[in-house]
């Protein structure tokens, strides 16, 4: 291979993800065998004519039943219940970032030509979850930092588009405005020119496939962006209810982009902070997530679902935020079953100092709040060692 070939091989190996599951060799072996048996049965039926019709009919019926019992190859992915937290399965929380209140440096608004976008779906219970990633062009530099144009898109997505360029008949629902993930400043992502946007497409859909998804574009030229849609789409299963497109949440890439599922309300977060918090860092926090419901609860992977943590130092009557970050979220869908809680540990976290009064001085109290979208928040307390 030449240089470009080598480079292409490397990029493709990085770009193409690992398969989500293994094929079932037994199902593969069974398929042609059943075809052959069925053909033999039909040949025999033709040869024996009406005399043996009843006997062959029984035999064929038996074979067809067996075929229906073959496991489907494209059913919903049901991951096994994780008995124990594995560092390999869960992404660690990114470094805490101090919240500035959403201040951004003014920059130009993106034209349509300055926006690149991708949209992809993956299966979930009752349909698919989708994420649209937007990135604006770099329009200037300040202090060596590349600044991207501001994304003039909100709200959305607004519609699914068919191959003929027309809107598909999938009604839009504006999602749950109350119990949203805690994205305190979603517009910051748009202003900074890098944003992810979630959506759900649930229920039964029997129409033509969607080829793109539309997002309103707020620009002098008006109009909308249509982004090619990759990935699975809901199947035609009338029992699953009417098809609905539900808009999600805006966030930076990696932040939660989906409203929580209603069943998350049966989850409970508990935990404790290890002793040993100092003025520089918060000691590790051990967390447990369990369900108090009777059925399993599936956690969607990032960035569909995530949690946040934040700490406040109290000293001498003054309070100041000291850190904020995101709890680990699953890279793959995970199931929490009754009696099988998830355990994980947030490693020691360095405090971000934002100025006088914000440091965790010895003897001060620190309140830590950990929240997962849709789950009652957990409040923990510790004292900074002297």
């Amino acid at each position, binding site marked *: *291979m030449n*240089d*470009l*070939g080598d*480079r*292409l*091989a490397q*990029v*493709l*190996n*990085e*770009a*193409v*993800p*690992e*398969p*989500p599951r*293994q*094929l*079932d*060799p*037994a*199902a*593969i*072996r*069974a*398929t*042609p065998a059943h075809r*052959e048996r069925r053909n033999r049965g039909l040949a025999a039926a033709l040869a024996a004519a009406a005399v043996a019709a009843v006997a062959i009919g029984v035999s064929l019926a038996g074979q067809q039943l067996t075929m229906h019992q*073959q*496991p489907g*190859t*494209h059913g919903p992915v049901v991951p096994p219940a994780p008995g124990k937290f594995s560092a390999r399965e869960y992404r660690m929380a990114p470094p805490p970032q101090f919240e500035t209140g959403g201040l951004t440096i003014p920059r130009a608004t993106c034209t*349509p*030509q300055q*926006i*690149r*976008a*991708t949209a992809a779906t993956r299966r979930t219970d009752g349909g698919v979850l989708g994420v649209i*990633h937007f*990135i*604006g*062009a*770099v329009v200037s530099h300040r202090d060596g930092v590349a600044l*991207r144009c501001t994304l003039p898109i909100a709200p959305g997505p607004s519609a699914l*588009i068919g*191959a003929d*360029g027309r809107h598909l008949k999938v009604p839009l629902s504006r999602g749950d405005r109350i119990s949203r993930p805690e994205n305190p400043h979603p517009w910051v992502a748009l202003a900074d020119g890098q944003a992810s946007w979630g959506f759900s497409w649930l229920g039964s859909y029997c129409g033509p496939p969607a*080829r*793109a998804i539309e997002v309103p574009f707020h620009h002098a030229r008006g*109009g*909308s*962006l*249509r*982004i*090619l849609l*990759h*990935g*699975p789409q809901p199947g035609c299963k009338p029992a699953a209810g009417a098809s609905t497109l539900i808009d999600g949440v805006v966030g930076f*890439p990696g932040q939660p982009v989906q409203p929580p599922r209603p069943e998350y309300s049966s989850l409970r977060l508990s935990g404790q902070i290890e002793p040993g918090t100092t003025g520089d860092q918060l000691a590790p926090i051990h967390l447990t997530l369990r369900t108090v419901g009777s059925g399993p609860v599936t956690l969607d992977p990032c960035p569909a679902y995530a949690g946040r943590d934040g700490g406040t130092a109290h000293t001498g009557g003054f309070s100041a935020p000291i850190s904020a970050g995101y709890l680990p979220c699953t890279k793959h869908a995970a199931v929490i079953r009754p009696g099988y809680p998830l355990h994980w540990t947030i490693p020691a976290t360095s405090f971000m100092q934002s100025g006088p009064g914000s440091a965790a001085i010895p003897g001060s109290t620190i309140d830590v709040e950990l929240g997962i979208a849709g789950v009652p928040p957990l409040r923990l307390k510790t004292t900074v060692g002297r």
Partner: protein
Amino acid sequence: MIQEGARLTSSEERFDGFVRAASPRLLRAAFLLVGDWPAAEDLVQTAFEKTWPRWGRLPDDKQRLAYLHRVLTNAFLRGQRRKWMGEIAVGDVPHRAVVDGTDALVLRASVLAAVRGLPPRQRAVIALRYLADLTEAQTAAAMRCSTGTVKSYSARALAALRADPAVADLFAEETKP
């Protein structure tokens, strides 16, 4: 699914091991060809299903793999002839690169989109050569064409990728020291 208590023959055991060993790489190549996992699984499963009845006549894993590649490539190209699966440009979203080495997702999407924009035979050569890691001769055998034809498809595909500003820019950025 195997019935409880049923015993596998040695041939079935070897086939099962072969499926487990060969399928991850084949699935990734198929994903590059067709663009989503359900379709990729269909393609690879079809290839294995067609290989199993001939299992006993294929003397070793090398020939089985070669046969599998040929069936998979044929199934993909036949599917392309039967049904138009090309993407349509439905919006005003440009394919111009914004160089950002930290955004692996954009890189991934750009490269995959560029490869998927190639004609089916060129795409098959890219998937077999650069992802399944086949030699030119093996690729030619899988596609039932000459090595010269493989070279020609490969050259045209690479030229098309070079000409794609998104991919060209990303490659240029990646090769910078």
